[in-house]
């Protein structure tokens, strides 16, 4: 007689040897296994933002890693913590992942002290994405406030790579202070080569600022929108997209054609920790990209 309950050692299961593929979400995998990645380049953008280029070290993991514009990764500094960060590079760039990170707290503060060559961990990609396929044949209006431009870089790259499939592309970008403008070194390239219309606005300008002054909604005066044929992507602080989306809805853009990226506290990225719960859904699984209709129906989303 053997009363010993036999041991099911899941450490011996096949999933322990295959690298996790976060795109295949229902398969048992090592959900905490981070892809070890090297920080290859760090670009200082402003006093508080840096662009990190990171490269997954293991070739087969790098191979596996594909994402769509709007998705995010969990970026980990072992011993310090893990934070959700939107991917700010092109999905077709299979060598590097670009992450634009603002220094606000523990992990991001430590990240800003890293030097190239340091190893970090990433898990992902996670979350929903901007439905770029659906927008084919239409105008796309991209509206960003502050750091909100970071997650828009990915759809901008996408559009450029599939430029012929889209019609007019307009970017509206507003920040508080002149020193906070991100990626201005790319603006000319975007305008000329990517053939986009890019307008910027600043709330509190200094004497060197030649452009428009005011809130992002003021930029609507300068453009004409064809509500029948336009998709909007909005990224920025909640208060901003509330105003922007209301305005767009007033013009007549259907709410299902506006997409916003929500930000919530996150600890897992996999719909388990509940920290990013909004109303009845999770920002990490059902978001961060939501259409505005859904957002309106979620309790306390904005």
């Amino acid at each position: 007689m053997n009363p010993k309950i036999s041991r099911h050692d899941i450490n011996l299961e096949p999933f322990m040897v295959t690298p996790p593929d976060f795109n295949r979400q229902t398969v048992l995998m090592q959900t905490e296994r981070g892809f070890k990645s090297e920080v290859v380049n760090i670009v200082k953008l402003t006093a508080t933002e840096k662009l990190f280029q990171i490269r997954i070290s293991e070739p087969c993991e790098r191979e596996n890693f594909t994402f769509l514009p709007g998705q995010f990764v969990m970026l980990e500094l072992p011993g310090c913590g893990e934070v959700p960060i939107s991917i700010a590079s092109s999905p077709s760039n299979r060598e590097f992942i670009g992450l634009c990170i603002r220094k606000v707290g523990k992990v991001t503060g430590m990240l800003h002290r890293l030097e190239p060559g340091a190893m970090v961990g990433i898990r992902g990609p996670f979350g929903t994405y901007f439905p770029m396929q659906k927008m084919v044949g239409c105008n796309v209006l991209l509206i960003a406030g502050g750091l909100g431009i970071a997650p828009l870089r990915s759809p901008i790259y996408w559009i450029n790579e599939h430029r012929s499939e889209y019609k007019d592309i307009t970017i509206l970008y507003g920040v508080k202070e002149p020193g906070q403008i991100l990626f201005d070194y790319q603006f000319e390239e975007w305008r000329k080569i990517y053939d986009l219309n890019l307008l910027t606005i600043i709330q509190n300008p200094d004497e060197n600022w030649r452009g428009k002054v005011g809130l992002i909604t003021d930029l609507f005066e300068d453009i004409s929108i064809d509500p029948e044929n336009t998709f909007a992507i909005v990224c920025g602080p909640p208060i901003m997209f509330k105003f922007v989306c209301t305005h767009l809805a007033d013009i007549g853009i259907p709410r299902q054609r506006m997409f916003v990226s929500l930000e919530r506290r996150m600890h897992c990225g996999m719909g388990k920790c509940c920290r990013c719960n909004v109303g009845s859904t999770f920002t990490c699984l059902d978001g961060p990209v939501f259409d505005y209709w859904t957002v309106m129906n979620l309790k306390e989303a904005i």
Partner: protein
Amino acid sequence: MLFKTITKENFKKMVECLLEENEVIGPKSRDQDLQGNKIYRFLKINSFEELEMDYTRSYSSPKNYFLPFKEDLATYRLEDKDWEQEIRYTIHPRVIIGMRACDINALLKLDQVMLKSVYPNPYYFARRQNTLIIGLDHEPLEDCFCRSMNTDTAFHGFDLFLTDIGDKYFVAINSDTAYIIINQFNAREVAEEDQGRYKIVKEQIKSKFKTQVDISILPELMDLEFESEVWKKWGDKCLSCGSCAMVCPTCYCYGIEEDTDLTFTKATKRRFLYSCNLLDFAAVAGGHNFRPEAHIRLKYRYYHQFRGFVEAFNQSLCVGCNRCGKACPAGISPKAVIDDLIRTEKK
């Protein structure tokens, strides 16, 4: 499902045998409350005598044997710029004796989140795979409302389920492991007489529910009464102490923290059970808190239990054990809050 009966004498032998080789968890009491009632906990037992099969309800649910309050997810060896990650899934073959139907149903609900939805949780999976569950029927307490939540009986999610029918247990068997074990202890085929007694006991249990909670319109009510004064009223009492979530068999919200050792050569990533009632649950960097007030957080716990989970899995998360009501120092119980909500709605 197969059914057998086992005498209490033989059951004792079985437990003693299980004790020889496995870690066995069961209800045990150490303290008494003011009214002289024993306070039970699920703890490791070392002999059959320690096991209190006549227990009423454990103060805290046995959830922590599947989702520990704190667990190391990964360890790291750090070296200059580089590091190595190590992940092991803890395997503790374990027997838990005496889980109630509601607790087993709670596990099934957790399974929905942890195993059946996206990104199955391997840590939970390891524990779930390696735990033999022996359930136990009981007569409902004054405040149990599991019947309203449809969780007063368990049909699966256990290995053995016992119903006391006098000098023996009527046993439902749900796994081969359990089947093999129980057969070694003279388990008998169910006689007609046993079945009769079993039915009577079951009827008795059913008839003894005193507390009912009407949840039929709850999901809708949660949205309608989102701004209700009821939340404020109860929220003002709430201490934001997280007791409810800690004892609840289904609350699973957690947080992650990472830390190093004193030499910065080792690091660990740790998961710790959290509660949506705690102040900084939804606070983000820069100081913004999406749920700054106690009543909003309290509302969210209910919203998740009775609305959000329903949307995702077509069932409430709550199993009606009223542990949270018992543990809450401020006496906030689902029954009271929901009744209050329904009352204001009617007004």
